[in-house]
């Protein structure tokens, strides 16, 4: 027994070597199922963290190449994008309801051209008569009005923006339903003028201005904006009101075109009454 201990003691280095080398070889040959030794792989959290840091530094050396690849990939993807194609499908949702007759139909459209800096501004939409667009339909965004369709081609629609001197829209004060005429006097694209509201109506800055149905174009209660100044010129019977648009007309991308299904009926009736007079 004592001899054995002495033997081990003398050859301690050899045994250490055999044990360590054996362990390494074991790892080497069990690598095919080294999930067992998962602690020793680079899924190890610390190693992972360090590699993440080093990789983030090494990335800088490949930036040029990476950028080129990304540019190529972007171009490829852009070619697949919906915007590279002209949609010909009918983008409307029709709701059938037996107790209510549908009056307004909303058609989604993409704004493909827009301006706010001229005196008379127009928008162009990527939908046309193939999608059921006709002249004199309302155009709104999710948070305010945009304009009225003017000319229609099979694939495109030209929209008379409210930022146009031709555009006059019937508007009302939401809280008391007094109506007036909204138009744009040029200048700031965020502001419009509301006229024809008599001075006896109580008004305050911040009151909501919405559309009404008088023109048979807009549905009722579509938001236009809020009053930003309320003034009365001396000797005038009507307010001089400035309205701040709720929609930012400079960055609109998607709009709804609203088709009033009962417009012809309303117009015909109104015309008949006027002619009868």
């Amino acid at each position, binding site marked *: 027994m004592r001899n054995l201990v002495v033997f081990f003691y003398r050859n301690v280095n050899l045994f250490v*070597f055999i044990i360590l080398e054996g362990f390494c070889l074991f790892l080497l040959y069990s690598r095919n199922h080294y999930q067992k030794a998962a602690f020793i792989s680079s899924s190890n959290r610390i190693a992972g963290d360090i590699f993440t840091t080093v990789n983030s530094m090494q990335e800088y050396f490949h930036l040029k190449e990476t950028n080129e690849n990304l540019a190529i990939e972007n171009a490829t993807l852009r070619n697949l994008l919906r915007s590279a194609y002209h949609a010909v499908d009918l983008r409307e949702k029709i709701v059938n309801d037996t107790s209510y007759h549908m009056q307004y139909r909303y058609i989604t459209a993409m704004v493909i051209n827009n301006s706010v800096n001229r005196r008379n501004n127009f928008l162009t939409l990527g939908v046309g008569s193939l999608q059921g667009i006709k002249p004199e339909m309302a155009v709104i965004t999710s948070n305010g009005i945009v304009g009225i369709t003017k000319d229609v081609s099979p694939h495109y629609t030209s929209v008379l923006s409210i930022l146009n001197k031709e555009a006059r829209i019937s508007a009302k004060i939401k809280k008391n339903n007094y109506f007036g005429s909204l138009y744009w006097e040029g200048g700031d694209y965020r502001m419009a003028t509301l006229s024809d509201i008599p001075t006896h109506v109580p008004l305050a800055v911040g009151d909501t201005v919405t559309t009404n149905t008088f023109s048979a174009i807009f549905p009722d209660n579509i938001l236009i904006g809020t009053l930003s100044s309320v003034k009365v010129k001396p000797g005038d019977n009507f307010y001089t009101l400035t309205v701040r648009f709720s929609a930012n007309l400079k960055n609109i991308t998607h709009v709804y075109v609203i088709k009033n299904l009962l417009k012809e009926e309303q117009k015909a009736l109104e015309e008949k009454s006027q002619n009868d007079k």
Partner: protein
Amino acid sequence: MISDLISNTLRFAILLALQLFVFNNIQFSGYVNPMVYILFVMMLPFETPVWLILFSSFLLGTLLDIFCDTPGLHGTSIVLLAFLRKFVLNLFSPRDGYESNTSPTLYQLGFGWYIWYASIMVLIHHLSFFMLEAHRFAELHKTLFRTLASGLLTLVFALLYQYMIYRPGSAKS
């Protein structure tokens, strides 16, 4: 002795980092991959007990394996190198033995001695490493080529390392 401990621990860390972040990224056409981390084993003082060399080199090899995702590969070859170091040193031993409290460096033993010592050590390690990595004799000529190409580069880096740490002007040889 304490300064030896500190300097060798530092060298351990520096060589590990260099190997991982610099030299493992040097790969000419998949053949040449210099492995400078074996300088740690090569430069330990003469009096270092063999078991300590074995354990520290095992640690170094295992750490490299963890980072390179090659379980056992670096460990096996560097532990083998650590074990054989003693015999290589005896092979090149001067007639009256090595001076005590010194390390096997170019500065201590001169260029001629060092190049032999380093060549044998690098050869042992690289041969075992690449043989284990390839793990078949069918590609023997490729394995040998990789051993020689990488070994030469490692040797160049080993010499550079010696000259960087010990200025030529102060060499005794």
